[in-house]
């Protein structure tokens, strides 16, 4: 089944004859609240995927719901000079995710212990679940659990949500230099964790 099209795609143009950008929709939603539903339709899938990776599907649904409620209530304060609302929404979502920090850490720790992802759906995972991959997964999960929260937020916004450095800086409301240094630190720790297991494996050979 195809994904539902976003505003202006499946149907002929609404009011403008063209696809409006996020800023336009948010501006419109200040007088016509319904316009905000299109913001959901454009971004909810990405936010949900990101939240589900960090928390699992159940809490992710809450995060998505809360994120868009908060965004809707704050839409009067959205800076309309940013045409893409994605970074703003990911910033709100990151805050919502932080309310579930213990659940997130439990998830990573469980993955670090077992190496099998309880949330992974596909039986294809059996194929992937070779020993080496499992070991890597456990190492990364353990390292994620050990990261400082700010570093983990930054790392996952860039590497999982695929935000640019600038977008991550917007989302977390910090200078882009801070993003860069957090990211360096976090990636180095993940890589060290991977290096550790590969050297362990070699020592077993």
């Amino acid at each position, binding site marked *: 089944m195809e994904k539902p099209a976003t505003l202006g*795609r*499946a149907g002929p143009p*609404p009011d403008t004859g*063209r696809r409006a950008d996020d800023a336009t929709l948010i501006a419109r939603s200040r007088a016509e609240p319904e316009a905000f539903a*299109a913001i959901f*339709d454009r971004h909810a899938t990405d936010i949900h995927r990101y939240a*589900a*990776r960090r928390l699992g599907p159940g809490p992710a649904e809450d995060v998505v719901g809360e994120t868009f409620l908060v965004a809707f209530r704050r839409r009067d304060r959205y800076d309309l000079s940013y045409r893409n609302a994605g970074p703003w929404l990911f910033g709100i979502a990151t805050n919502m995710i932080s309310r579930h920090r213990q659940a997130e850490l439990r998830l990573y720790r469980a993955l670090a212990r077992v190496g099998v992802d309880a949330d992974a759906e596909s039986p294809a995972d059996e194929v992937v679940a070779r020993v080496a991959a499992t070991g890597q997964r456990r190492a990364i999960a353990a390292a994620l659990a050990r990261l400082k929260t700010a570093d983990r937020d930054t790392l996952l916004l860039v*590497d999982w949500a695929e935000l640019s450095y600038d977008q991550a800086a917007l989302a977390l409301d910090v200078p882009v230099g801070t993003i860069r240094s957090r990211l360096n630190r976090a990636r180095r720790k993940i890589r060290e964790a991977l290096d550790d297991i590969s050297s362990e494996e070699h020592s077993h050979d």
Partner: protein
Amino acid sequence: MTDLAEPGPVRELAGLRADVAGRAPEALHRARGRLLAEIHNERDAVAPSYRALPSRSTSRLRRAFPHRAEPRPSAPRWLRPALLRPVLLAAAVAGAVAAVTVSLLPGPAAHRPPPRAVGSAPASSPASRSSVLTAAYVLNRAASAAAASSQPVPRPGQFIYVTSVTTYLSTEIGPSGEKSWLYRTSRQIWQSVDGERAGLLQIVDRGNVKLPWGPVPPADTGNPVSWNSLHSLSCPGAAPARGTYAFLASLPTNPGRLRAWIYQHPDGQNQADAQAWTDIGDMLREMLVPPKLAAALYRVAATIPGATVVPRAENAVGRASVAVSRSGAALIFDPKTYQLIGEGAVLTKAVPGQGPAGTVVASTAQLKESVVSHLPDVPPSEVEKDAGGPSC
């Protein structure tokens, strides 16, 4: 802080838990419902000016018709058609192809005869030979017609001026569920050829139309005429933005190359063929399309699998037509000249509150395309501003 080079992304991290977002459709549906509930709450709780005013321009409306600012006692909670429309049309393109007659009726359906095969057209007219018609045949005829047509060549700085009549779905969500009907408008749109100037859009409300299986729609009240500014799309000196004539003029007119371009540059996230069909419709809508490009677009459309012919159709002003439909989204052509004269959408499966499969949920008639050098003189106070535009 450190002498070490910046570490790049960790490949193994990028793959971790990449597929865990299961059950997304249901979860997203519930989350969306929470947002809609909040939207409706706000509508009910907040300013009366937000309520039950079918016009965009509430402030002007209040000045002109102060009594209308009072909410009606049982004011329906409006979901602006502008927003629900694409979502609900998306439902139309999500299901199976339905071979149905696209016939949108301007008046009550019961009072009109069913659309017939092209009225006065000779018996040999292609539209009446439905058994031998294929979608590819109709689209290739349209391509030949477009290639042979002539039209003005606009210059940068000018505007493409298009008039149309549209009928789209309007849905109201109330305590007893969703109720839908169609609403008609006349549109005049002026779009900057190069995208560097602001454009203009006039919408005139033409009232509501009952769906065959739907409730009697409310009478449309309020100011029937609205003017809307359209923000610029392109930066001076930069490449023209998608959605402009200049952009269309830059596309390849060789069908093979155009097809490759369309499939490589989807303007959305649908499955490839569905997206290509949608994108072609987007490029043709409310636009003067260079003849060679129009021809190539139809030839590309002819290669997209899944399209069927709707031999006896009508556009939004009741012109007998032949349509080509894919997943409920139809291009409507004149059965003799094979000019594009509108679009239509039908449900491909039953949708509660709207009707069974085959229900027409959108219909347009594109009436005229031309090139003008100036926007009409409209008092700025009459024009709704359009936020956004590129930061140049």
